[in-house]
């Protein structure tokens, strides 16, 4: 099992959700984050001061999947989130050792989906 963490643009969330849905990935956890990457940030002109905001708003997805779902999930995120412009985001894959469903006590592959 793997834990896939994706950092995407907030405005791409609807598209990514759709792409994941099409790939039969229905479960996920979404967190609001801010991030620094290659993207430089939009220019704010608040009260006559031009600033580059360097911690930009991103959305973080955490998706736990069985091993055979890793590839399709990553592909779906890529498809949904890519615009080809800086700021599109990153995907990280971490090993996941155990998984429990609290309601039933099921474990691992049975619990993950």
């Amino acid at each position, binding site marked *: 099992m793997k834990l896939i963490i994706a950092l995407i643009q907030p405005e791409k969330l*609807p598209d990514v959700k759709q792409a994941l849905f099409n790939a039969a990935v229905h479960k996920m956890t979404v967190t609001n984050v801010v991030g620094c990457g290659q993207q430089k940030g939009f220019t704010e002109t608040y009260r006559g001061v031009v600033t580059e905001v360097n911690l930009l708003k991103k959305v973080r997805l955490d998706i736990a999947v069985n091993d055979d779902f890793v590839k399709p999930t990553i592909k779906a995120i890529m498809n949904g989130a890519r615009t080809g412009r800086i700021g599109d985001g990153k995907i990280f894959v971490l090993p996941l050792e155990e998984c429990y469903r609290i309601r039933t006590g099921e474990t691992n592959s049975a619990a993950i989906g």
Partner: protein
Amino acid sequence: MNELLRGVDTLWVLIAAFLVFFMQAGFGMVEAGFIRAKNACNILTKNFLDFCMASVGYFVFGYAIMFGAGSAFMGLTGWFLSGAVSGASVPLSAFWLFQAAFCGAAATIVAGGMAERMKFPAYLAYSFVISAFIYPIVGHWVWGGGWLAGLGFADFAGSTVVHVLGGFAALVGTMMLGPRIGKYCPDGRANAIAGHSIPLASLGVFILWFGWFGFNPGSTLSVGNGDLIARVAINTNLAAALGGIFAMLAVWKFFGKPDLSMAMNGALAGLVAITAPCAFVEPWAAIIIGAIAGLLVVLAVVAIDKLQIDDPVGAFPVHGVNGVWGTLAIGLFGQKALGLSFDGLFYGGGLTQLGIQLLGVGSAVLFVAVSMWIVFKLIDVFIGLRVTREEELRGLDIGEHGLEAYSGFQIFTTQ
């Protein structure tokens, strides 16, 4: 003595004007509260600047068109207020300020219906045109000695002049813009796009209700012996209260829970509906008018959603539908003894007054719908009405103004 009388009347008209001005804050808070945080600055900027634009437009052109001497269709004297005369026994400046605040209210109604997707420059253009030309023309018909005034059409404080105008302009604009992204599923089901701050909206409703005590009672334009302003005030309050209660009951019954946002819209609906008849009816009639307004607003919200017209704050159900209802209610509950040309239907006056009311509100609807359709089309061609998909998803605050409403707060902008 005459000096004092004039002084007291001026005092009253000015205080009423201040209250009507303050409604601008109410509109701002209601509209901002009922939309998403990512577009809050945008609507507030629109709301703020349309009052500024209305002040200018109504100073330069509007007043002359509305109250100047001219034809039955529009006035033509008093541009820049120069040579203009007051429409009441108070100084021109005071009368103008009161009327300008009304004009600002009419303009700002539209912002809510077209919220979360309309370009800012397009809005600026629109708001100048409506306050300099469209509103004053309808105003001239009814209050400036125009053709409807001549027929005995009654609209004490502006159910038609202000609210029907604003509400139908919002409807035309909203339909032309199309719904917000994500509002309707491909299969036609509507999604709720919840407002980002119900407390702000609720404050706004209280401010509006408060300001309405200037809007309606102030339209007496004179204190007199107090009877008229007191009657108008009590009617205004009762209609609002009943509108709130009945909208809440309706939404509770139909959807299972007493939804505050709808109850608040109900109170506003009651206020809009009583605006025309407030001087001509008894308190018991105000109660009925308000209660019906509360029901109407719920039905209208549901109906336009079925038609996939996406009006985020309910501008049309509140102002358009209930502006019509209030105007017609005069023909039902109005009394000759209270200053009307004919008794209403329920006082044995037959259908005369009702017919006149219908004609008046119908003409206003027609004129507004056609003229605003042209205005919005022209704006669409020359400036563009709607922002890009990307900007809409990110929010207009960043896109149009480079500013966030709640900097530092963690907010989900898309779901």
